[in-house]
């Protein structure tokens, strides 16, 4: 009898027992109810099972569709992952805990110089490194050692990155632990980066144009030399700059100036011993450390040689150029124990050398420092004078040589000192020009002169001297316009006196500036005519209104025939070009007579009047009519 049958039999036996009364009689109705009920139970269970199976199949089908979709997603994800791996700039290998490659990109093989397919999933780290070593990875190192190194420093996590050569390339290897186990090995080609860093480091220490050490690295070298100097190994510090270099830049342009600096550098290098060192501090400034350990340490001979070689003519792009150099010398450790004090000492000596005439060299002396301090004090006093209006203008009359009538005045600047005395411009204008203060001082002079002239009768003009520094600055024309507008003076009554030094600058720019001034309606005079090199050419480049003849010619007018001839020529030139001629520094009647003879139009000088304060101008004008009666004729 089968198992199921036995169970059914037992069930029926139980049903029968339940339906059997105490008397042994069977309640057929109750038995039938129980039997029917057990059929129903079985049927319900079967239906329930069928239904559950159908639903489960449905659910599983849904789950299967979802799984398929996920698989599809994963396969797309895989393609993306492979594309990313293939296109990344780094070489990459994922290693499992047993150091076997799980994933690798082609870039890794390229970087290690390996043929295609040399590293594939399953390759061990040791095999990969051995193959790479055979192709130039880790030169000078055995493959096993290289593998050990990588394992120790990267896979153990002790170092974040290591650098290794592969042929001529520099590779940066790094690794990251993967979740679970294993790691990702990354390889980066940093050859370019390293080269770039080296270039940047060089640039930081060297001058781009000449390749010489720059100021920063030169200061460091001085410090090193100073440390040696403490042990008695002294050195000389030579600072030099080029005379007239600025003019080369201005007239021939910066490219030529740069070529000149390169050439100077070559000459300096050729002049120095190996133990000496030259640097470019900026612009046309150079500095040299001369090692004095070796005998004979002849610094003077070096300075002389440098002046010689630098001063020899240069031929650059067809231009023959002559520059000179001045040299300041400081000795270490005597003249300074720190780089900056030593440089300052050499600078002061250089300043002195330039002041003493070009092509010179000077050793630092403590007195130079004192003179420098004095200059600084003067500069402070000048600023103070500007602020507190301690400048004043005196006016020297200009007279018509023919009528001896006053045609105008030249404004002359004076600096009132605390003791009441007046300083002449020669004592402070150079410093004002050097410091740029001239711009503000010049502006004040312009306004003050225009304001004063407005009080004068008729068409009397005022002449104002313009510094080349003042003239060069772009706002100068605006300053003139403002001064005129502010005072209300007619532009034709203002005459600006410029010197030849202005014309030394880029002539096209200068002429343009002069034309803008002329357009305002002011007159322009060429001052100190005849003292420069090529005055005549300036007269061609711009139609000045007036030529002022330098006092040196006037003074000799009486005594020397050549002076008479020169003055005559200048006046003649003026007549033929339609320019007035004004003689400066007329002190005697004889000089006046001489000027009258050659036809000079105007004159000024002590013969007529010293410069006078503005409040004296009305009295002076009143007195001139009687003082020079001839003028009335």
């Amino acid at each position, binding site marked *: 009898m089968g198992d199921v049958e036995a169970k059914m039999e037992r069930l029926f036996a*139980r*049903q029968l027992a339940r339906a059997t009364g105490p008397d042994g009689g069977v309640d057929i109705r109750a038995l039938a109810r129980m039997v029917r009920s057990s059929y129903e*139970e079985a049927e319900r*269970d079967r239906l*329930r099972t069928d239904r559950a199976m159908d639903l*489960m199949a449905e659910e599983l089908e849904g*789950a299967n569709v979802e799984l398929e979709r996920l698989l599809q997603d994963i396969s797309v994800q895989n393609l993306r992952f492979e594309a990313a791996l293939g296109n990344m700039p780094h070489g990459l290998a994922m290693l499992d805990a047993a150091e076997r490659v799980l994933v690798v990109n082609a870039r890794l093989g390229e970087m290690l110089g390996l043929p295609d397919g040399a590293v594939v999933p399953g390759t061990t780290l040791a095999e990969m490194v051995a193959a790479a070593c055979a192709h130039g990875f880790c030169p000078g190192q055995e493959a096993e050692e290289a593998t050990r190194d990588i394992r120790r420093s990267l896979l153990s996590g002790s170092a974040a990155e290591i650098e290794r050569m592969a042929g001529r390339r520099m590779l940066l290897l790094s690794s990251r632990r993967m979740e679970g186990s294993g790691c990702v090995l990354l390889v980066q080609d940093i050859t370019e980066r390293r080269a770039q860093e080296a270039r940047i480091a060089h640039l930081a220490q060297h001058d781009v144009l000449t390749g010489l050490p720059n100021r920063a690295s030169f200061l460091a070298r001085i410090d090193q030399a100073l440390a040696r100097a403490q042990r008695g190994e002294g050195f000389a510090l030579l600072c030099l700059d080029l005379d007239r270099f600025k003019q080369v830049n201005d007239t021939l342009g910066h490219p030529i100036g740069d070529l000149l600096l390169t050439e100077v550098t070559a000459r300096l290098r050729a002049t120095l011993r190996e133990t000496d060192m030259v640097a470019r501090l900026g612009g046309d400034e150079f500095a040299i450390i001369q090692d004095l350990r070796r005998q004979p340490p002849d610094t003077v001979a070096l300075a002389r040689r440098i002046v010689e070689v630098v001063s020899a003519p240069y031929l650059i792009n067809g231009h023959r150029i002559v520059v000179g150099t001045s040299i300041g010398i400081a000795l270490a450790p005597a003249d300074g124990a720190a780089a900056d004090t030593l440089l300052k000492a050499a600078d002061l000596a250089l300043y002195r050398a330039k002041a003493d005439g070009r092509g010179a060299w000077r050793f630092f002396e403590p007195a130079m420092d004192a003179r420098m301090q004095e200059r600084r004090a003067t500069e402070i006093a000048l600023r103070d004078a500007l602020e507190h209006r301690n400048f004043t203008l005196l006016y020297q009359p200009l007279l018509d040589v023919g009528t001896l009538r006053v045609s105008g005045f030249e404004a002359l600047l004076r600096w009132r000192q605390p003791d009441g005395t007046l300083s002449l411009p020669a004592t402070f204008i150079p410093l004002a020009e050097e410091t740029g203060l001239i711009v503000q001082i010049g502006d004040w002079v312009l306004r003050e002169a225009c304001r004063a002239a407005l009080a004068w009768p008729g068409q009397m003009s005022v002449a104002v001297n313009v510094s080349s520094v003042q003239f060069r600055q772009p706002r100068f024309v605006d300053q003139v316009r403002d001064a005129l507008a502010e005072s209300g003076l007619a532009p034709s009554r203002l005459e600006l006196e410029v010197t030849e030094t202005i014309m030394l600058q880029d002539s096209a720019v200068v002429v343009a500036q002069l034309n803008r001034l002329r357009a305002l309606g002011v007159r322009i005079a060429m001052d100190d005519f005849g003292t420069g090199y090529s005055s005549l050419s300036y007269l061609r480049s711009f139609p000045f209104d007036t030529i002022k003849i330098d006092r040196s010619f006037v003074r000799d007018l009486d005594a020397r025939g050549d002076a008479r001839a020169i003055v005559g020529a200048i006046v003649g030139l003026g007549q033929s070009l339609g320019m007035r001629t004004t003689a400066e520094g007329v002190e005697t009647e004889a000089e006046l007579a001489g000027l009258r003879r050659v036809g000079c139009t105007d004159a000024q000088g002590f013969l007529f009047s010293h410069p006078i304060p503005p409040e004296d101008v009305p009295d002076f004008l009143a007195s001139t009519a009687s003082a020079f009666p001839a003028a009335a004729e």
Partner: protein
Amino acid sequence: MRVAKLSWSPQAGLSSTGDEPQADLVLYFGARPVLAEGGCHQALREAFPGAVVVGCSTGGQSLGLEVEEDGAVGAALRFAGTRVRLATENAIERGASHACGRRLGAALAAPDLAGVLVLSDGLHVNGSALAAGITERLGPGVPVSGGLAGDGAAFAATLVGAGEAAPAERRVAAIGFYGPSVRFGHGSAGGWRRFGPERRITQADGPVLHELDGAPALDLYERYLGDEAQGLPGSALLFPLRIWNPARPGHELVRTVLGVDKAARSMTFAGDMPAGWRAQLMRGGVDGLVSGAAEAARAAAQRCEGAAGDGLALLVSCIGRRLLMGQRTAEEIEAVAAQFPPGQPILGFYSYGELSPLAASGHCELHNQTMTVTLLREAA
């Protein structure tokens, strides 16, 4: 240890297989309407004045191999050298189940405590929390078993009577067994088969399950039950839910439904349903469940080896099993009996949840849809 079998009905009153009124402990199980009258409890207290009398309502009870739905059955136990002590907790709220468990543990704790039998309200107590509370206080060394009272397929009210207190709702009774000679064998097994896809508990709140895989849990049950969904929550017992923590695979529990909220589309289970855990439907066949019952009995017998005498085999089986097996329910009791020597006294009831230690940890846990066998014997 001596055991007398008892039966009681309103018509026939009490009858016993023994003739002495001396007993230390009387256990009884009966239909809820029968117990609600209080007559049974009173009759037993009078018949055994020196005994601790404890019983509960059921989803069917058995004394021997037959399952009864009417009346009540019981057993009077007289020990040779074992003491028993009763602890009760009344008016329990579901949220206080854990604290209640701790208090019961504390009340019974003693160095010679050898085992604890718990009968609890089946609807207002969180069985998981109750078991955890008791074990927390007693430790895994003391076996705790028992079950939650039942109410047939009605799920309306479950009663526990204990000592002087007549059967009532919201009560938990715990009986401590003390002394060196008592043996407490236990075993628990289901015999259900997992079925259908694995699911994830995505929203739950204590024992209230809201969503599986992001969809209302009640939708799933209604679909699988078809026409039988009308019988909810009882018919949900046909598809118990196996749940486990994915971080601790192998430690799985079976949960059974106590109630449903059709408006909220949620279902309330007999124990916690932690969100994030996995879940899988189960279904059973008579043969599988019968094998499970045999397995539970084998385990209990093994743990009691060496103890002489018959003792008592206390069976707590899930109402869901009875629902599925129908007239063939007796087969699982036969299977249990087959694991014991002939003549072994067997007393049992169909419950709303079974309490038994986990084989692995010894911690008492709430089980559902299992046959739980506790074999109580005394060593010679």
